[in-house]
């Protein structure tokens, strides 16, 4: 395995006519947790979706474990060893919790067993046979993360895993992310909640208008919270 599970360079992507990613470059080293921070519409989610091949029009280079994936068919990309957990969690309502968990095929060697996943997220045990549509937001998020851990993916993309969840659940998700880091998984985390991001991440990339505008280590981020608050704080100003 190379020491850089993912290396994105000069990635461009379009939604129809609008040029939403304008030369995004970043990487993550093996076992690292990096975050992509930025306000709404900065292109964070689009970056993850582009990595997974979910956008019709893309240009640039995305190397997964050293292999170029920009021209691969969308369903082949995950097989390079990526697990993707989208913002909307995408729990299938017509499948039971068990079926949801077992759905994605194996894509790598570092798979957690079902027992490990249930130990990490005990709530899922209780909902084992219920339908995917009957879960709470927190349970959906646990299932969405558990689902990709069973595939053995060594590179995990998480899109706003804490969005809209109660603080106690956010803590549980945070603990899970740290446990996965200890197992040597590489994690890319898209977040708006940068206080949460700082509790789990090694490095941060800041995106604005479809470009990476800043890059800092977690230590730097702790020193420059004001600078980050300025870039990200605007979100709250805009929202209210």
């Amino acid at each position, binding site marked *: 395995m190379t020491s850089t599970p993912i290396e994105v360079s000069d990635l461009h992507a379009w939604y129809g006519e609008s040029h939403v990613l304008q030369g995004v470059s970043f990487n993550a080293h093996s076992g690292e947790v990096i975050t992509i921070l930025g306000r709404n519409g900065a292109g964070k989610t689009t970056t993850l979706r582009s990595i*997974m*091949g*979910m956008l*019709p029009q893309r240009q640039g280079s995305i190397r997964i474990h050293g292999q170029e994936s920009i021209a691969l068919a*969308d*369903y*082949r*990309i*995950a*097989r390079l060893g990526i697990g*993707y957990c*989208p913002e909307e969690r*995408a729990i*299938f*309502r*017509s*499948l039971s919790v068990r*079926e949801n968990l*077992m*759905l*994605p*095929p194996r*894509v790598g060697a570092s798979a957690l067993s079902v027992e490990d996943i249930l130990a990490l997220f005990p709530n899922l045990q209780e909902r084992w046979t219920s339908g995917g549509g009957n879960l709470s937001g927190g349970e959906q998020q646990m299932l969405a993360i558990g689902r990709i851990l069973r*595939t053995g993916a060594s590179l995990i993309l998480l899109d706003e895993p804490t969005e809209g969840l109660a603080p106690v659940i956010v803590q549980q998700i945070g603990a899970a992310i740290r446990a996965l880091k200890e197992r040597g998984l590489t994690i890319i985390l898209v977040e708006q909640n940068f206080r949460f991001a700082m509790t789990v991440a090694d490095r941060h990339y800041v995106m604005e208008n479809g470009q990476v505008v800043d890059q800092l280590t977690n230590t730097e981020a702790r020193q420059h919270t004001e600078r980050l608050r300025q870039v990200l704080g605007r979100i709250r100003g805009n929202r209210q």
Partner: protein
Amino acid sequence: MIDILGIPVQVLLGQLMLGLINGAFYATLSLGLAVIFGLLNIINFAHGALYTAGAFVAWMLLNYLGINYWGALLLVPIVVGLLGMLLEWLLLRRTYRMDHLYGLLLTFGLALVIEGAFRQMYGVSGLPYSIPQALSGGINLGFMYLPFYRAWVIVASLLVCLGVWLLIERTRLGANLRAATENPAMVKAFGINVPVLIRLTYGLGVALAAFAGVLAAPIYQVNPLMGSNLIVVVFAVVVIGGMGSIMGAIVAGFGLGIVEGLTKVFYPEASNFIIFVIMAIVLLLKPAGLFGRPLQVQNSMAAEALRQPVALSPALRWFGGGLLILLALLGPLFLYPTF
């Protein structure tokens, strides 16, 4: 003799039997349509023609290769299912990103071509296909005469419907299929080959139609029009059961067959349109159908976002147009006018 509501019990049970037979065909055909609609979001207008094709292929196997009914029952769904997968690969998959109308027009055109070809080759008078030896005859149950073949049709289609239901609701492949119906983009992002899953699903739906065609051959004769006579009612059955709903298709298929049969006893004048009356009522009270989930609507809305306008290159447009005009001019010189 026992009477129920003034109707001799023999008549009642006889019509119930006929209703169940029709219901067996409604269920098998609407099940295929439901499976296809669920994943492809395409209303397969070619379904009736592929049912016809099933009956014709059974007839051809018998008359050209000497393969009997039982062989046909096994082989025809495979052969016609593979043909369906070929059609999906060559033509149908190109319409997924276009407006729904294109898929509908394409399958409608396919239906005309398939039926026209059989009509051209075998005429419209119908070809005989005899009941297999083992199932000829029947048994007098005392209260009614039960032909073995008709009982077999009901049992076989019930078993096949239940088998398909189990496949979709209880197996891993079925879970993939249900997930892809709900959110194909996400299923692809897990590394599942959705295009192949779609092709297999279309093949399965078509194989069901072909299976029904083989079952029907000894009852209705093999006729190029047998599909189009049936398919209008089957569409009504699918709407009543709920578009894309597997259980809905099975229950509505058998249920409406029985309702139609009973209507023939109690109010024969209405038997031809009772299903459409029920469809109107269901649409008014429960627009998603009896078993339909609003999920399907959501899925098609998600697909809407991906739809692209059709854009042929000018060269291809001229070539295609020219080819069609040429065919239209030369066709009558070679084909006997069938219409």
